[in-house]
């Protein structure tokens, strides 16, 4: 009954084109933000932060990034892991080279560096499409991981070949390093998620977003209305990589603390983020969150159910998890190619009318 636009009159175009046109949605959005910012930080403990919240937030940024490229602009990419690695190594080099500069600036710079790298690897998209482009981005994935393994400069010639994040502070509070409090980890990730999500939403609803979607839906028609395919695709690659780079930087500096590139940013990571986009919903910012939440929560939920409740061996549960993810992806591809976001939209459509049939 709450959920309808009846009586919610829009008198300006700006009001009509806002992100949440329905009043109830707006309230819910502010409520979620308020809970995320004002309630959760006081209750978060080490387990919740490390097992669920921090990975969820970081993967959300990565999924938003990939969704811009694949969901909005229609360019399939399997290079997400590689681009996250660029963000991680960029922030590592920046942190060690300029220890006095704020980590916040380093993370943003890491995003920008990744954007440049991403745009460079996006160049083949002008000539090739679909599967072939996916293979080209796969090359980026392998090349970048190889590069960070092979060139010692990137890991500051450390003996193990790993990079590990030195301790850094924001306003006197440690956000990286071993001493970081869970709520500090959570809040720095939340800050980046909030800003990234708003920026991504603004990008996708404006003229640039329409250019991307035009390229996705029909590139010939896009050209005829004046979309420069070169510019549109490269900006999509750059914007996408910017977010993925930030995600990679946070993943390394805030979440893991120490990283071996092949392990943390391998091809599995690319697939994981792609699955998040597909399950969550291609072409939807909400879907990026939903997909990230789903794939972060699924292993935790399965583990709680299998190991803690049913008492199965953890290896069985780990295998079951692979089966479940695979099955779910097939299920979504067949039943709901637009993912959780579409389920959500359909629910909303129904809610608008409820309890009346039409």
């Amino acid at each position, binding site marked *: 009954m709450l959920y309808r636009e009846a009586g919610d009159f829009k008198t300006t175009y700006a009001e009509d084109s806002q992100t949440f046109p329905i009043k109830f949605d707006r309230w819910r959005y502010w409520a979620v933000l308020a809970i995320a910012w004002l309630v959760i930080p006081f209750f978060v403990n080490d387990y919740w932060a490390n097992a669920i919240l921090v990975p969820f937030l970081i993967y959300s940024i990565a999924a938003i990034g990939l969704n811009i490229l694949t969901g909005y602009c229609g360019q399939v990419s399997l290079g997400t892991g590689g681009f996250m690695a660029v963000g991680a190594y960029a922030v590592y080099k920046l942190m060690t080279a300029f220890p006095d500069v704020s980590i916040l600036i380093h993370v943003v710079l890491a995003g920008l560096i990744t954007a440049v790298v991403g745009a460079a690897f996006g160049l083949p998209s002008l000539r090739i499409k679909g599967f072939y482009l996916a293979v080209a981005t796969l090359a980026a994935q392998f090349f970048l991981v190889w590069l960070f393994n092979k060139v010692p400069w990137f890991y500051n010639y450390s003996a193990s070949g790993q990079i590990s994040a030195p301790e850094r502070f924001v306003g006197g509070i440690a956000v990286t390093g071993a001493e970081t409090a869970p709520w500090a980890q959570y809040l720095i990730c939340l800050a980046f998620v909030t800003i990234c999500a708003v920026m991504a939403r603004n990008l996708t609803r404006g003229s640039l977003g329409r250019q991307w*979607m*035009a390229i996705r839906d029909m590139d010939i028609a896009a050209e*005829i209305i004046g979309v420069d395919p070169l510019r549109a695709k490269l900006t999509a690659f750059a914007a996408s990589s910017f977010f993925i780079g930030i995600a990679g930087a946070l993943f390394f500096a805030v979440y893991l603390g120490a990283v071996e590139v092949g392990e943390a940013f391998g091809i599995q990571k690319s697939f994981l983020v792609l699955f998040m986009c597909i399950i969550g919903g291609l072409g939807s910012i909400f879907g990026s969150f939903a997909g990230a939440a789903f794939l972060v929560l699924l292993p935790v939920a399965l583990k709680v159910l299998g190991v803690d409740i049913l008492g199965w061996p953890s290896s069985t549960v780990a295998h079951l998890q692979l089966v479940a993810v695979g099955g779910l992806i097939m299920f979504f591809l067949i039943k709901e190619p637009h993912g959780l976001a579409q389920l959500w939209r359909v629910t909303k459509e129904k809610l608008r009318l409820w309890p009346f049939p039409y």
Partner: protein
Amino acid sequence: MKDSGAPYVTADGRQIGKVLMDMRGITLRFGGVEAIKDISFDIREGEIRAMIGPNGAGKSSMLNVISGFYHPQEGEVWFRGEKRPPMKPFQVARLGIARTFQNIALFDGMSVLDNIMTGRLTHMKTGLLAQMVWKGPAEREEVENRAVVERIIDFLEIQAIRKTPVGRLPYGLKKRVELARALAAEPKLLLLDEPMAGMNVEEKEDMSRFILDVNDEFGTTIALIEHDMGVVMDLSDRVVVMDYGRKIGDGTPHEVRNNQEVIDAYLGVAHD
């Protein structure tokens, strides 16, 4: 009517201006096939120019030459008194040439409103950073362009389907939305590739009315390809007739209708 190139006024009082687009000796080959053979014609400001001809005559190819998809091996394209260098389609669009397609080419994943807003892209200039921030220039630009789009939505009477995803619309409305998208660009020259293909009589009447209104109210120059002779003869000021890549007739509907070669090739004669 012999074409002197000077502006004139039609019988029903419409101003026909200078030559807007001049195709000079266009020849287009695909391998050994000559799709267009040495065709010259012009399109003048404010007129409705029709291209007719049997299937495979090269009409769509000619439209594709104008909009930059094909690059002719020979010949020159002059637009607004200047020779146009070879251009990509998006550059042509920025010159102020918009078009619709024979098979509807809308963006199925987007709403009607978003589809028409894409037509405004050539008028939207804010950069990536301004759009990330949204408040300020990006929002202002969005609202200004939305106002233009809403005028076109009113004009084409599609207010009710504004927020509907294009994929859900019936054929006739899709055609209208495509016209709206082309109009949103406020083009100097509007190319319509079979705007009435596959429509019933009522839809054709609606579309004809919209084409005349567009020409009348916005003063848009229109070049169209159409197979329905009744429509062509009623709407257009001048007609180019093509057959097997050659131009076989050019003039007012009346002249074309009485041209023996055109009658033989296209309009049909009793064979004896």
